């Protein structure tokens, strides 16, 4: 009865061998499916994780709520550190990046006075979006590409870059207006042929855009430009 | 024929690196079928240790214990043994019948038989009126009585009782005593420990006196009285224990 000890010991060792093998599989799949928590060696992040254990998502939510309240009370600068913190806690939460980029390149942009400051915040917005893209799990979704493309197109009038990112955005599942914006970007970038092709695509695929697209194609073909 | 038997049974509790407390030292006991055997001794003398070793709750340092010729961990043997622990606590969220039914199921009794047995036992320990009461509302005496019923649920051949009368009022004590005598008539073997000398005196066929883990004396009350030239059990008890303490003090150089 009391001599069973070694059997249990053996069984435990065997189980751990199994665990080791299974863990290798799990780690492999984590890499494959982008499930790893990103390790950024920021003291704040490690300390946060230590305290939060498995509840990072919850912490991100609390910060998000705080951000909303700053937002509605117009305290735009206070949002920045919160955005930073949320992006550490949950980098796969794509809204952080898109809203954060928009916030810098639009809201704060509008708030500051001098052109130098405006340029600075525009660049900060772009930088933030690109940082979001550096996480592999964000790089296979249209969201950030579109936000980047739109910011280049609309705010920066930087059409080559706008085209570059919008072309990436349409590679992934996306809503119809992305194709629409890309067509506009082609035109502004001087790529009229591509713009026409893109409008044709829009016309053939999205019923709601049929009239607009037809008119655009017509204008482009006759006047060489469509957007007033 | 000995139905319960210990051979050189020894239990040391290891507390620290060099600190060892003797729980039981070289105890040889033989308890015969059909007798009521009482283990007597002051608190901490090793009575409970001995019972726990017999039932496999503790493991001996050396020596061995057998019940019906089987070691303490034998499952088949336990089917025929009933045990009442000291100051028993039970699952206090259950009521009396539920508790007994749970124990009955652990003895693999079929449910018709168990129900009948539960009725009988509740009648026997006079808890029939408290059927719906959860055990946490029981008084101390009621707990002791439901404990006794629980230890009898399997109609055991051997009944082991640790301090069965603590917490009982005089009438409860008398009822328990009568019950034990009745069980003896049915041919059951009963092993009980107690420090109530008068109780032991009235029911036990043979007794053993424990002190500091040592077995000082064992035999029938009359025989022991004669052997130690004692007038009664109390006298015998004091005499044996004082004799041992003097010897013990001399051996260890302990001053008192």
């Amino acid at each position, binding site marked *: 009865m009391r001599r069973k000890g070694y059997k249990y010991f053996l069984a435990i060792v065997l189980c751990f061998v199994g665990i080791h093998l*299974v863990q290798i599989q799990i780690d492999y799949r984590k890499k494959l499916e982008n499930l790893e928590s990103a390790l950024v060696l920021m003291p704040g992040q490690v300390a946060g994780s230590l305290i939060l254990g498995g509840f990072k998502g919850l912490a991100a939510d609390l910060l998000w709520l705080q951000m909303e309240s700053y937002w509605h009370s117009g305290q735009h600068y206070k949002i920045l550190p919160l955005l930073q913190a949320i992006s550490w806690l949950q980098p796969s939460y794509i809204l952080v990046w898109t809203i954060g980029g928009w916030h810098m390149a639009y809201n704060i942009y509008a708030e500051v006075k001098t052109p130098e400051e405006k340029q600075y915040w525009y660049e900060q917005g772009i930088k933030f979006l690109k940082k979001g893209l550096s996480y592999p*799990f964000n790089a296979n979704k249209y969201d950030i590409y579109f936000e980047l493309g739109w910011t280049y197109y609309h705010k920066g009038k930087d059409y080559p870059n706008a085209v570059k990112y919008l072309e990436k955005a349409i590679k992934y599942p996306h809503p119809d207006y992305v194709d629409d914006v890309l067509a506009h970007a082609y035109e502004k970038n001087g790529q009229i042929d591509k713009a026409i092709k893109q409008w044709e695509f829009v016309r053939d695929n999205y019923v709601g855009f049929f009239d607009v697209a037809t008119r655009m194609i017509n204008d482009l073909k006759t006047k060489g430009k469509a957007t007033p | 024929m000995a139905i319960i038997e210990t051979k050189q049974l020894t239990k040391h509790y290891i507390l620290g690196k060099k600190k060892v407390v003797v729980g039981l030292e070289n105890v040889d006991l033989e308890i015969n079928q059909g007798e009521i055997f009482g283990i007597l001794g002051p608190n901490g003398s090793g009575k409970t240790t001995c019972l726990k070793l017999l039932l496999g709750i503790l493991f001996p340092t050396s020596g061995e214990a057998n019940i019906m010729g089987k070691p303490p961990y034998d499952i088949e043997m336990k*089917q025929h043994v009933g045990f009442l622990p000291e100051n028993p606590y039970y699952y206090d969220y259950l009521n009396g019948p539920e508790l007994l039914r749970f124990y009955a199921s652990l003895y693999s009794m079929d449910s018709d038989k168990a129900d009948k047995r539960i009725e009988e036992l509740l009648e026997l320990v006079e808890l029939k009126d408290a059927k719906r009461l959860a055990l946490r509302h029981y008084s101390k005496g009621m707990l002791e009585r439901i404990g006794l019923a629980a230890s009898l649920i399997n109609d055991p051949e051997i009944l082991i009782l640790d301090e069965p009368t603590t917490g009982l009022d005089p009438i409860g004590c008398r009822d328990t005593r009568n019950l034990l005598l009745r069980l003896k008539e049915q041919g059951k073997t009963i092993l009980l420990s107690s420090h109530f000398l008068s109780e032991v005196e009235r029911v036990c066929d043979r007794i053993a006196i424990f002190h500091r883990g040592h077995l000082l004396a064992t035999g029938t009350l009359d025989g022991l009285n004669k052997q130690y030239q004692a007038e009664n059990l109390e006298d015998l008890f004091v005499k044996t224990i004082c004799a041992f303490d003097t010897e013990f003090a001399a051996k260890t150089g302990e001053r008192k």
Partner: protein
Amino acid sequence: MKKMWLIGVNTFRESIRKKTLYIILIFALIVIGASKLFSFLTAEEELKMIKDVSFSAIEFFGALIAIFASLAAISTEIERRTIYTLLTKPIRRSDFVIGKFFGVSMIIFVNFILATAFFIGLLIFKKSPPNMDVFKTLLLIFFELILIGGITLALGTFTSDAFNIICSFFLYIVGHLTSYGKQLIERTENIIVKGLADMLYTLVPNYENFNIRDKIVVGLNVSWGYVGYTIAYGILYMCVALFIALYFFEKREI
């Protein structure tokens, strides 16, 4: 086999009679409160937050129940000395231990099912019926809870209550930091340090494996393969806990 079942059922009955299930009410209040709190957000944000809060609450309260039910299962049984009346019955010590594992798992399961039902009801009410990903997350949370219970139970066979609680919570936190540990290991040059760290990585219960909710709520996909391997991991580690419990309990003097 039957005796394990009996002991398990009795353990479960204890938790019902002692009203541990009331903790589910707290869970319900938190989740309802959360859904009211978030109603000013956009639908997408609100849904993310309801899921975050619910998953976290299911895990957190589940972990509490798992730890305290497991503590009660062996330590309390010893402390209240009810165990004497069990071990003197025709029951093997292994029956007792396995029965307790079983009983605690039942307690966790029922709590989990109630909380999950509530959460899914809320999702349906919010017009976003749960998809497969939600079920995958819940499945892994369930296995994590069972494992937490098993480990606490195993610790209970050879430690005191206070130490057990500290250990269980400590392992819970460390077990969630393992993926950081792994990435640090990969950056280590020293072979000895690396070897030791790798061993530790295998020995510590890797609770982070079970945590896919942060990924699911933001719309990432997790394959069934991953879920399957993680469940296998949970079952294997559960066996370790069971063998440890058996090893110590067979020798335990009470």
